[in-house]
């Protein structure tokens, strides 16, 4: 029942997001057809704007976006005008759905790989540093995690390329063609999140170790390793789980920086460029896509809470 409510609530939320996104992209100065080279006459410019209904008031363009416009044709009959959400002003030969269908799976693959990498590196590192709290492995591990969080992707990626692709020639410098092409972007994208997860997991572990049920278990005479592995982990993982929802949404919808550096045909590049190009419809489409992913993943996170922590119950 709770989850049904959450899903129903998502609909007005998406509507509000679409209104805000639509208004914002239209507020930015410059339109999709403002180019360095202006057409030879104002009439040509007018033709362009008319062909894409950019001469209409914004509210009407918004309705048209969802296909909620009916128009009278020359003969006086009312007919339904096509929705504009699938049209790109910039890439005029493609449908937006085609662009997303081609680029989203690429970003999702890269995002999932980076997610796996972040988990595979972050969780053990967090566990290890928590278990050795206060000793040098803790400091070393925490330092590494901190470093991963602090060094941005646009520094990590060129360094990785320099070392592994140019100097050692083990891996390709860019493009997206084979599994080998996926290694460097996965690391470059996942490194930040692995550091973040390591830190979250370490904090979670330390908090869990101080909770009453762990004290009770320790009093029962359980060894430290069993305590950590069987009891503390389940509670300690909760902050990681709640972070992984938005993190996964971030990762799956692509990263502009990483996709740009490695020339990966993902959706992240379109996210930024659609806004820069005043490609209104694409910008709103992608904002909605991101919102939907975020809502769904947060829902999954909340759901997994009940599964991981029996104390959590939703009404």
């Amino acid at each position, binding site marked *: 029942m709770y989850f049904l409510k959450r899903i129903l609530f998502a609909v007005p939320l998406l509507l509000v997001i679409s209104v805000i996104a639509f208004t914002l992209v239209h507020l930015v100065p410059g339109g999709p057809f403002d180019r360095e080279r202006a*057409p030879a006459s104002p009439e040509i410019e007018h033709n362009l704007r008319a062909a894409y209904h950019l001469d209409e008031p914004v509210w009407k363009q918004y309705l048209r976006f969802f296909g909620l416009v009916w128009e009278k044709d020359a003969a006086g009959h009312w007919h339904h005008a096509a929705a504009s959400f699938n049209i790109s002003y910039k890439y005029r030969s493609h449908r937006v759905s085609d662009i997303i269908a081609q680029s989203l799976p690429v970003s999702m693959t890269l995002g999932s790989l980076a997610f796996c990498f972040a988990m595979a590196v972050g969780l053990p590192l967090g566990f290890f540093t928590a278990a050795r709290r206060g000793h040098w492995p803790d400091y070393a591990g925490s330092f590494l995690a901190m470093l991963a969080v602090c060094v941005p992707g646009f520094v990590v990626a060129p360094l990785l390329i320099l070392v592994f*692709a140019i100097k050692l020639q083990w891996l390709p410098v860019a493009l997206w063609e084979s599994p080998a092409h996926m290694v460097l972007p996965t690391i470059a994208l996942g490194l930040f999140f692995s550091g973040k997860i390591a830190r979250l997991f370490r904090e979670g572990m330390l908090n869990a170790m101080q909770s009453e049920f762990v004290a009770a278990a320790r009093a029962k005479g359980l060894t430290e390793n069993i305590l950590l592995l069987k009891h503390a982990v389940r509670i300690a993982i909760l902050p990681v789980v709640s972070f992984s929802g938005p993190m996964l949404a971030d990762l799956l919808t692509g990263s502009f920086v990483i996709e740009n550096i490695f020339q990966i045909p993902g959706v992240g590049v379109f996210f930024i460029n659609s806004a820069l190009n005043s490609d209104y419809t694409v910008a709103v489409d992608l904002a909605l896509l991101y919102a939907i992913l975020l809502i769904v993943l947060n829902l999954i996170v909340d759901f997994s809470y009940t*599964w991981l922590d029996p104390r959590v119950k939703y009404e």
Partner: protein
Amino acid sequence: MQNDEGSGFLKSIGAVVIFCFFILSSSFLCGCLRREPPADVTIINNAEPESLDPAIITGLPEFRIMLGLFEGLMRLDPKTAEPVPGLAQSCDISPDGRLYTFHLRTNLVWSTGEPVTADDVVYSWLRAANPATASDYAGLFFYLKNGEDFVTGKLKDPSLVGVHALDQYTVRVELSHPTSFFLKLCTMPVMSVVPRQTIEKYGARWLMARPLPSCAPFELAYWRPNDKIRLVKNPRYWDAANTRSQIIDLLPVGSPDTALNLYENGQADIVLDRTLVPGELLDVLLKRPDFHPFDYLGSYFIRINVTKKPFDDSRVRRALALAIDKDRIVTKITRAGERAAPTLVPPWTANYTSPPGLGYDPALARKLLAEAGYPGGKGFPRFEYMFNGAAGGGDKVHQDIAIELRQMWRDNLGIEMDLRQVEWKVLLSSYSHLDYETARSSWVGDYNDANTFLDCFLSDSGNNRTGWKSARFDALIHEANEQTDLEKRAKILEQAESLLVRDELPIIPIYYYVGLDYFDTNKIEGFYQNILDDHPLEYIGKVKSTK
């Protein structure tokens, strides 16, 4: 109880492992599925094409690909970028220069087998000129009789426009007035011939039709946005025997570092465009034999909004121009061998010599500023210089130039300006609304003629964007373009440019562009540098090993 908890946790670990395995295996699978023959030549072609529809495209990266798919009556010579016969094997021009009769080759077929006829040419031109197509370049049809009225929607009947098919192989073009550079216009993408049946069947998405009929050296194998465009040789092209490569890949790479990395690692053979040379490495790279700078038909200049005080006074504008040490800008900032520009039209433009422009003369600049009422810059209002920048390394040059300009104007004239960096689209919007005081700008010629630069500053041109209106300038340009004697025409154009860059200065030219492509001449043949930076793909190929 403990067991339950333990197994629950193990289950979740198991689920994660299975998930990871699934993701990994699926990504490896889709990686391995992409087994395709390697391309003969891979070209890095800057930005992702907005379209490949000849009527729609506006940028050089699109032009280069499109010309491999749809040919016009004329095509470009790869060395000189001058027009040579394309689909038309010859052209008769009437003595008054207004009537062009094109004779099509008789062996023309689409890649799908149907003949290419004069009707296809007429259809393609009228389609591009039709207001409903909303072509940016429809202005080129203004040169046709009744073309302007048709493009602007005043004339509805396309049969009155000056292009007609006399028979299957003959196209008659009637111009509104003699236009000496008309054959050059015929190489422009918007004049290319497109497949009528495909367009009528598929509408706006006709480029997605497969097979896509082509009348040029290549066919479109696939086009994955932001990934790759693959062209394969069109065996039915009239000159197919001379097409060097079977497969050409074009990669849309926008980052100069990535472009250089791909090139260095052998994943690309040719990198087109000056903007794809990392600025920090310019000095090192220019010394290498595979980096080829060349004169390019473009100019960098400053726009001045003449509708705002104190810039409405031409003495002020001239003072600003005379106070700029342009040589310093090209040697300290741009550094690829650019030349300081006293004029707008580059010196390598065909059939034309620019008038002497204004040089660097701080003393005269101060004198002019004093005459205008601002001795030593006193009382001169603080003003703003707008430029684009931020993303991408290539734009940093605008910022560096802005800083240099501020210093020069402060030192030489005693005036103060603020720098304002904005997004590209914001800059363009500010131009059109005259919502700026001074701003950086540039212009790249469409065809090799002075007109492509000068007609921007006609009073009613959408590219004027300075608020400057001169009846005399307009009259000179119109007079020049109706003149068939090339020498006389050049003289008239020179007078017009003199108004623009010596007397009135709504713009201050800074430098002429230099193009820069990189490729190894030992590996690639048939690739030449020309002032349009346009490279007909059919000539490009790998050097066949002679060992």
